[in-house]
């Protein structure tokens, strides 16, 4: 991923019509159900798409009624047009797409005490997601949706993300909900999930 400036330009074999399927209602229903599983059982990775899973997530959730921020210019112009969401700063957007290999470098919306749902959803692109121990940062998760605890490993995520995320989510009900995604799968880390760092491999 570091060599690519945009998600789609890095894989020219995927034509525009291939991406268009993310906007088809049947596909969006299936994608939403996968996201629903991911949010219900945090840390459990779910299959989304053969490629461009971040675009699949945004197509499922974002439209003209939401605000979107793409500080690293990861989306192609065509995808932005199709999403049709007003673009704004990551500090003010409801949905943010960000690179995981870089320091977050922004402070997303946390919501308010009366309306914590205004806290942002941040889609973070990483290299790999592994259930259990694997490459990258190894975390032990607990909290709602997790029976006892669950171990996951995230590859290609800058170490500063964990402390930033824990800072954003330190005052429940305020916080940020993360969706980590590689090219094919995603897992959700809602603000209620407690993340213990068990060290890097």
């Amino acid at each position, binding site marked *: 991923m570091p060599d690519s400036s945009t998600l789609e330009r890095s894989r020219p074999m995927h034509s525009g019509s291939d991406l268009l399927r993310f906007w088809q209602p049947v596909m969006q229903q299936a994608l*939403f159900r996968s*996201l*629903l599983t991911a949010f*219900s059982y945090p840390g459990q990775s779910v299959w989304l798409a053969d490629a461009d899973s971040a675009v699949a997530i945004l197509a499922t959730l974002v*439209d003209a009624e939401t605000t979107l921020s793409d500080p690293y210019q990861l989306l192609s112009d065509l995808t932005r047009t199709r999403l049709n969401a007003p673009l704004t700063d990551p500090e003010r957007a409801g949905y943010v797409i960000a690179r995981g290999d870089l320091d977050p470098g922004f402070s997303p919306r946390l919501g308010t005490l009366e309306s914590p*749902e205004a806290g942002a959803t941040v889609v973070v692109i990483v290299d790999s997601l592994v259930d259990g121990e694997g490459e990258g940062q190894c975390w032990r998760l607990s909290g*709602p*949706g997790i029976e006892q605890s669950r171990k996951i490993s995230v590859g290609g995520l800058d170490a500063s993300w964990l402390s930033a995320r824990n800072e954003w989510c330190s005052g429940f009900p305020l*916080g940020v909900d993360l969706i980590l995604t590689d090219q094919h799968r995603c897992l959700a880390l*809602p603000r209620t999930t407690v993340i213990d760092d068990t060290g890097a491999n």
Partner: protein
Amino acid sequence: MNHSYELPVDEVSYNFAFLDEFAKREIRRSILKAISIPGYQTPYASREMPMGRGFGTGGLQLTLSLLGAGDTLKVIDQGADDSVNAVNLRQFVELTCPGTSTTERAAEANIIQSRHRIPEDRLTANQILVLQVPTPDPLAIVEPSEARRKIMHGESDYASLLTKLYEDIVQFDEIAISNRYPTRLNGHYVIDSSPIPRFDVPKMHQSAALILLGAGRERKVYAVPPFTDAVPLAFEDVAFRTEAFLDHQGTRRHCDRCDSSTSYLDEIMHPDGSHHWQCSDTGYCNDRCARRDSAGSGAVRS
């Protein structure tokens, strides 16, 4: 709903699951936020549905935004599949969601929409329970202003609600809430558990299945995520109690049909003044009867 009625496909073609895709996307966004903030009443743009508010439009909109081809739905009204509300909602889904199927057996369904009951059989991680909610805010009985209630919820300030429970104990020696029992999720938000009896409230605690609660008129959706602590409000010295179904001798009543002594029972009155007890969950009761009849086929029932 007229059973022979068909949507006028030639003139107006309705979208799959009736709602348009923008409405569904908005509900889906709200559902994910509701799961992320367990118990928080997330606002959503409840659409006009072709049935009155109060007939399960909140739960129905959640169900319609979840449903896709291959899903199997069960609709429950007061434990039964064959009462008016359940039949109407089930027929509406059959009419507008081609490719989905419906069932009366909880174990076969992966989405269960219900009103007033949680099925007796333990739900699994492959199932989603959608509950219909008339009044989503447990603080409404103690604080009329929604603006103030939102602050109280955010601060997890439920002192006035506990005072109401205490007043019940002073007056009746017992917390006098038969259904919609206030329940605290994950140590923060207190929810209205929807008009399920007290008997069903413990089923929310550490449930393997996701529970979504939708209020159409009040335009709110909230969630009990799987494996989440759901603790009914009570006091250290006055514990939460569920319905015991004891007779005068103090023994647990049985269902007159399937003989279950663990289920929630309805008391059925007869015109001659006599009465009997029967499972409220008809799917569960029918299953048990069918199993007994096939096991003891040929045997004469006493």
